[in-house]
């Protein structure tokens, strides 16, 4: 058998050229899943049969000389909160266990049209609420680099799948860092595009003004390639922005000469010293590559955590009202509908989901709305204004992705506040609606990977990928 290339772009090129078949690529990845999935638990469901049919269809197209898409034969894993027609979609929750959606999410339709091959649905913190994937109703995912540690979350399964080589690329969703933080902890690239860049149609909603779908990959160029395929206007999502999908793959190798990169002088503390040291090294590497480092301030950044943990639960409490035992998923029978709702939701939701629903309900309830939710929305505006001001003098901003490297199971599971603090550097961009990506940049404590985060203004993906590509080149050169 021919050697299987490691990146999505190499796989697609080799498959399109006929030097390897999509089926060979797939079987190599399924073999890796067979070998290690029982240890990692990246997947809620491996869709081997669906994948084989898709791969064989691609191979038939190539044999017949028909044109194929930019992801021909590329295996991809999908976070299990994206609807797949006729294929179980659970959000890692007992309340949706066994549910088969009657339609595909727009990202699934676009990936299929591009020739991607879906290998499975990946584990997550229930309804994407968490930073460790320990909140899954179907068991935690383990970090492939150290199975005593968490992969991060909430898209921990998608990050672990790429880190373990189960698929070269995957999709996650990011509401407060749920792509970038697990990417950092698993040593892979993770991208949250601008809010509205990628259609949310068919993504089970957590917090609708913050949620955004994006890719995991082993290289910045692959992440750019997947972003190009899934981005672009979709009339099925009324928050989808009208701009066409940007051209991004070239940006990853364009370099940073002449770019202005912001260093936040009043960055909230809490990062491990080794993480801070990697951030310093990242600035040095970019300066050496021709960028100018500019000191900036983001005075409201320290308040982002509070704003987020009021706004996201408030939206969640509304969004998750739809899980009521009437139209899909679990029902616990009772004498009347009210009793049925309460019993169904008590049995179907895990504790973290219940905490956030209650927190959000409280923040929105009469007498508390102004003090909590209303105030949080004003803080959100302040944070967005801080970014707007900063981007008058810089093209991108650099900060850590996660204050910590991958932590051990159980370390934070019983203390919600310490878990929430994992998101301190990722949530500000969700509040502002801006793009951001995490790029592996060396190691920190215990030899575990550190991710450096590149932030850019709305629709600033090209600048973001330029800096991401330069960091990747510098990290590779240092090894």
């Amino acid at each position: 058998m021919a050697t299987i290339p490691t990146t999505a772009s190499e796989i697609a090129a080799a498959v399109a050229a006929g030097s390897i078949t999509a089926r060979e690529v797939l079987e190599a990845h399924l073999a890796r899943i067979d070998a290690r999935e029982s240890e990692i638990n990246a997947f809620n469901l491996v869709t081997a049969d669906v994948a084989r049919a898709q791969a064989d269809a691609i191979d038939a197209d190539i044999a017949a000389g028909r044109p194929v898409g930019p992801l021909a034969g590329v295996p991809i894993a999908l976070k299990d909160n994206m609807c797949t027609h006729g294929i179980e979609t659970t959000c890692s929750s007992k309340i949706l266990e066994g549910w088969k959606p009657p339609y595909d999410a727009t990202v699934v339709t676009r990936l299929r049209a591009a020739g991607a091959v879906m290998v499975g649905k990946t584990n997550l913190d229930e309804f994407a609420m968490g930073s460790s994937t320990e909140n899954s109703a179907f068991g935690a995912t383990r970090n492939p680099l150290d199975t005593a540690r968490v992969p991060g979350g909430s898209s921990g399964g998608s990050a672990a799948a790429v880190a373990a080589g189960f698929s070269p690329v995957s999709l996650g969703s990011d509401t407060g860092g749920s792509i970038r933080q697990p990417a950092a902890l698993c040593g892979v690239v993770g991208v949250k595009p601008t809010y509205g860049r990628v259609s949310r149609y068919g993504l089970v909603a957590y917090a609708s003004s913050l949620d955004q779908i994006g890719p995991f990959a082993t290289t910045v160029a692959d992440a750019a390639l997947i972003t190009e395929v899934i981005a672009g206007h979709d009339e099925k999502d009324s928050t989808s922005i009208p701009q066409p999908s940007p051209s991004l793959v070239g940006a990853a190798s364009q370099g940073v000469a002449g770019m202005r990169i912001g260093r936040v002088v009043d960055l909230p503390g809490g990062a491990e010293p080794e993480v801070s040291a990697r951030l310093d090294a990242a600035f040095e590497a970019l300066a050496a590559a021709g960028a100018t480092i500019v000191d900036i301030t983001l005075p409201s950044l320290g308040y982002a955590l509070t704003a987020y943990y009021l706004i996201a639960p408030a939206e969640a409490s509304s969004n998750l009202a739809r899980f009521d035992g009437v139209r899909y998923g679990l029902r616990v029978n009772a004498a009347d509908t009210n009793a049925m709702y309460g019993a169904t939701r008590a049995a179907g939701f895990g504790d973290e989901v219940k905490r956030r629903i209650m927190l959000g309900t409280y923040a929105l309830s009469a007498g508390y709305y102004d003090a909590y939710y209303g105030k949080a929305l004003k803080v959100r505006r302040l944070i967005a204004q801080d970014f707007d001001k900063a981007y008058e003098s810089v093209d991108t901003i650099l900060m850590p992705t996660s204050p910590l490297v991958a932590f051990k199971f159980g370390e934070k599971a019983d203390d919600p506040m310490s878990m929430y603090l994992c998101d301190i550097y990722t949530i500000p961009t969700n509040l502002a609606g801006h793009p951001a990506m995490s790029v592996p940049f060396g190691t920190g404590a215990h030899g575990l990977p550190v991710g450096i985060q590149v932030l850019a203004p709305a629709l600033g993906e090209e600048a973001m990928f330029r800096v991401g590509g330069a960091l990747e080149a510098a990290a590779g050169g240092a090894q």
Partner: protein
Amino acid sequence: MTQSGSPISAADVAKVAHLARLDIDDAQVENFTEQLAKVMGHFGDIDALDLTGIEPMTQPYPLVNVMREDVELPTLDTDEVLASAPAAEERRFRVPPIVGTEG
């Protein structure tokens, strides 16, 4: 009005759980109250900010009145949708009695 940052009481948690249609027992109320009070204690930090005159920001990208062309498009297959419902009858979702025992 309760001051922002004050700890949430067990009675508040029980009330909110009812509003959110989550049946939780007394032991869970106690546990959730402790956890939520700790989280909400952290929220007091924004009281230090002067938010006078700041407009609330509900969404990042101000799109308004998004409409599509008024043309017929395929809809979801009714039988397929009902097949995944907990109970269905005569092409409708079936539910327990609406008017029941609980006030």
